[in-house]
């Protein structure tokens, strides 16, 4: 029997492959359209389920590109990407991409609750509206991230940290297993970073897998299970003080 179609796409629903890592990339090459050279040059990364991995490296090293390739936002020139053992696009309801803050129109007239509810759309598709179950899931997600009291606010009225948590709540409402966070700590102060880390950790403890692109190197030890360093579109193998052991464990 065929699997049901996925809403909004021409793909079919695919079950996660037992024992497969949450994210697997093998010899990944990505060119940017119109740009010279390669954004990623043979990147291989393996992130097991239920872990929290940091993706670090200077600007332009390919962190965002790697996340976008996994999310299906840029096309892959060659190499393999698997999410829970399935190709990109076959399971995008399991994958939540949290864009950099600047890529969202925070002035848009929408409440925090409704933004979180958009996480349900991937399960709904065309001509179908969120029902009471979707609202319950969204409100539980808001509750989990401590945003319930802000549910009625317009999204631009939140602080930077609260906005990041609203995006995490949406990923939770989506019931995604793999969360890709692009620079979640940009332009938030140290105390807010703490609260975002806490939120991330509680999601990981709940069985989610997180891949976080960041250039904040101060917390690599405590906050992440694994660190992958990129430079010029390649995985950096030269050890970095303190986190070298973790690096070896997680890159192939």
């Amino acid at each position, binding site marked *: 029997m065929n699997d049901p179609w996925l*809403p*909004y796409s021409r793909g079919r629903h695919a079950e996660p492959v037992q024992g497969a890592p949450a994210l697997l990339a093998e010899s990944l090459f990505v060119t940017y359209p119109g740009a010279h050279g390669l954004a990623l040059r043979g990147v291989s990364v393996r992130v097991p389920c239920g872990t929290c991995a940091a993706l670090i490296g200077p600007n332009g090293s390919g962190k965002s590109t790697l996340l976008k390739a996994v999310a*299906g936002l840029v096309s892959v020139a060659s190499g393999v990407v698997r999410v829970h053992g399935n190709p990109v696009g076959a399971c995008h309801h399991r*994958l939540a991409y949290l864009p950099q803050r600047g890529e*969202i129109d925070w002035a848009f007239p929408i409440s925090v609750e409704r933004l979180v509810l958009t996480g349900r759309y991937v399960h709904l598709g065309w001509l179908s509206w969120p029902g009471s179950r979707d609202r319950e899931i969204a409100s539980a997600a808001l509750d989990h991230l*401590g945003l319930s009291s802000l549910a009625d606010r317009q999204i631009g*009225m*939140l602080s930077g940290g609260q906005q990041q948590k609203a995006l995490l709540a949406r990923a939770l409402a989506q019931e995604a297993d793999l969360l890709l966070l692009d620079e979640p700590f940009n332009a938030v102060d140290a105390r*807010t970073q*703490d609260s975002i880390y806490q939120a991330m950790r509680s999601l990981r403890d709940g069985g989610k897998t997180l891949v976080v692109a960041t250039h904040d190197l101060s917390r690599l030890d405590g906050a992440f299970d694994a660190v992958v360093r990129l430079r010029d579109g390649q995985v950096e193998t030269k050890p970095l003080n303190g986190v070298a052991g973790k690096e070896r464990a997680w890159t192939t």
Partner: protein
Amino acid sequence: MDYLTAPFRYGFMQNAILAAVLVGVTCAVLGVHVVQRRMAFIGEALAHTTLPGLVIAHLFGWSLSLGGLCAALATALLIGWASRRDAVKEDTAIGVVFTGMFALGVLLMSRTRSYRDLTHMLFGNVLGVTTEDLWFIGGVAAVVLTCLALFHKELELTACDPIYAEVIGLRADLMRFLLLGLVALAVVTGIQTVGVVLTSALLITPAATAALLSDRMPRRMLLGALLATACSVAGLTASYVTETSSGSAIVLCCTAAFMAAYAARSAWHRLRPTAAIPVTKDEPSEVAPA
């Protein structure tokens, strides 16, 4: 009171008021999306580019609405297509296309030596709306409002967070095409009431006014629709009583409402400085001790 209700005993005034309200409400609700997506300039351009379509239809004796619609849809497709290329910036492309099309329309019109018809196209002739026109206007209103209702959640998401939408397989450019098509439809009906030059006012001003008063999409749409209705009735009545151009009167009512809302909002913020200022600093209260 008789003085104000008297005009509406005439059949042509009843048609006019119905047309103005239908067009006004359609444009206002659609305009909420247009304003939020900063597509105001495109709305203006689409209205202007209908002129050659209208003139050609007029010359050959075809339906004016159909001529305008074809020109507007063609422009909507062109703009949508051009904005996916990088060679020319979108606003530049729009500027080139819309002035060129408008000039072509005026040129064609000057060949017919009928400036009276040209004036009707440029500034509208809501008092000349026929029952047939009303059916067309009603049909467009139904199509536009139905599409906006059916695709509300997709239109909302692709405007607010296009990247997330792409990741779940929802194409932002597809929704933009849909919106451009709807704007093209609405603009053609706007031309009958306020004319080519002022149609974008119906699309933008009531929606912009509503945006000053609310920060939710559905509430903005409701407010915009109410404003458009009130301004259409008030404008038509005023133009009848003072014997002035009806399209301009409707648009000026919208402009006055915008200025009133702007003043009210400024006064409100002065009275309650904390009311609607976005939080720029992170609130310490949200941080639990690590």
